[in-house]
């Protein structure tokens, strides 16, 4: 069972179909599967439902799939940084479902963990609660949210091995581990494929059981808000 593929294009072979649901890891442009997104665009796949916290920027990340109109629907918590997104949404070409960020994260985690529904107080009394089951626990009201699974999850990790074990780096972890667990097929792109046994077994963030295919990618890692402070003169 060989999990390592040569490149993003070959890793996507046989697992892509029109109308499919794709989870894409990352927060903003941090920890996104750049290579797999670009390769997904190149497959020409259409009518995607994409579950991702954000929608990239116009010319990077999921923005690439928006420009080519390959996305039919987004499930996200925040989509502010993308003019093409705004245009398609306002013109009705693109469907959009907003989830509170924590609810979205938990829905992915639940989907991967075989939990079809859970209760949360996030969103009670807001638009988000409309049409959802309400239930009281200890006198407080909660709403039910459902687990999410995807036909394909694409995630970005720092290092991985031939068994698909992954580790993430700093805040580039974000949605990647839950999405890895919730894909019927999960493909990971990593900065480095390391020899088996070189990852510390106590510190593997995503065990290989969740990863069916893995590639080494090339990562631009674009920064959205470069904020710095100045060194005081000595």
């Amino acid at each position, binding site marked *: 069972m060989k999990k390592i593929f040569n490149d993003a294009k070959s890793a996507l072979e046989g697992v892509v179909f029109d109308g499919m649901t794709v989870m894409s890891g990352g927060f903003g442009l941090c920890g996104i599967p750049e290579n797999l997104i670009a390769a997904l665009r190149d497959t020409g796949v259409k009518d995607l439902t994409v579950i991702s916290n954000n929608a990239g920027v116009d010319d990077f990340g999921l923005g690439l799939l928006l420009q080519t109109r390959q996305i039919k629907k987004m499930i996200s918590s925040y989509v502010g940084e993308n003019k093409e997104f705004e245009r398609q949404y306002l013109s009705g070409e693109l469907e959009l479902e907003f989830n509170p*960020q*924590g609810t979205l*994260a938990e829905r992915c985690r639940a989907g991967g963990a075989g939990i079809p529904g859970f209760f949360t107080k996030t969103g009670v*009394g807001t638009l988000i609660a409309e049409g959802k089951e309400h239930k009281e626990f200890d006198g407080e009201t909660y709403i039910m949210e459902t687990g999410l699974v995807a036909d394909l999850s694409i995630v970005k990790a720092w290092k991985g091995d031939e068994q698909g074990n992954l580790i993430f780096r700093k805040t580039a972890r*974000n*949605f990647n581990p839950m999405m890895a667990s919730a894909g019927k097929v999960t493909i990971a792109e990593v900065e480095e494929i390391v020899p088996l046994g070189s990852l510390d077994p106590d510190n593997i963030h995503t065990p290989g059981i969740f990863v069916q295919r893995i590639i080494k990618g090339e990562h631009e890692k674009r920064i959205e808000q470069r904020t710095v402070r100045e060194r005081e003169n000595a």
Partner: protein
Amino acid sequence: MAWDRNDMARRAAKEMEDGFYVNLGIGIPTLVANYIDDDIDVTLQSENGMLGMGPFPFEDEVDPDLINAGKQTITELRRTSYFSSADSFGMIRGGHIDLSILGAMEVAENGDLANWMIPGKMVKGMGGAMDLVAGVKRVVVVMDHTSKSGAPKLLHECSLPLTGKGVVDMVITNLGVFEIAEGGGMKLTELADDVSVDDVKSSTEANFEVAV
């Protein structure tokens, strides 16, 4: 003279206590970090998956894998830990964060909060705001007392879609500080320098008790 952004941030920083875990929103709340008392130990959480957020990096420290929830580059501290978004919001939803300081468009006298959407305008999304106000033990809003057009933002009822119902515990504006009791009931507890109760009343729609 009403408070400026830094005065408001300075006042908000007084809500922190030793040992607190705190989430700061975007805008004025971010400034609050600059005014935390040196004598207390406070840990900042960033909901994209980090406890122990440090200051902005020097130019040569910038790391694209290290950003806050506002997508700004930041730094880590010796106490820092990283975790997934699910674990991060587990902390938030589970009531482990002591204090959330965030901005608002409207706050109602019963503690309702609106800060995520204006119908008819492009909606960017709620991000983590609904989770934060629902889960964090204490929610402090920092905002200008009125909109740019001078309309009151402290209202009987919010006109905009809510972020959370009855979730705000305190509001700090450029005119003063309001406390909102559990279950509703707003009380003016502090005035900015040279601001009178009448000044506040004239730009507030919400009913409030005066306890300055």
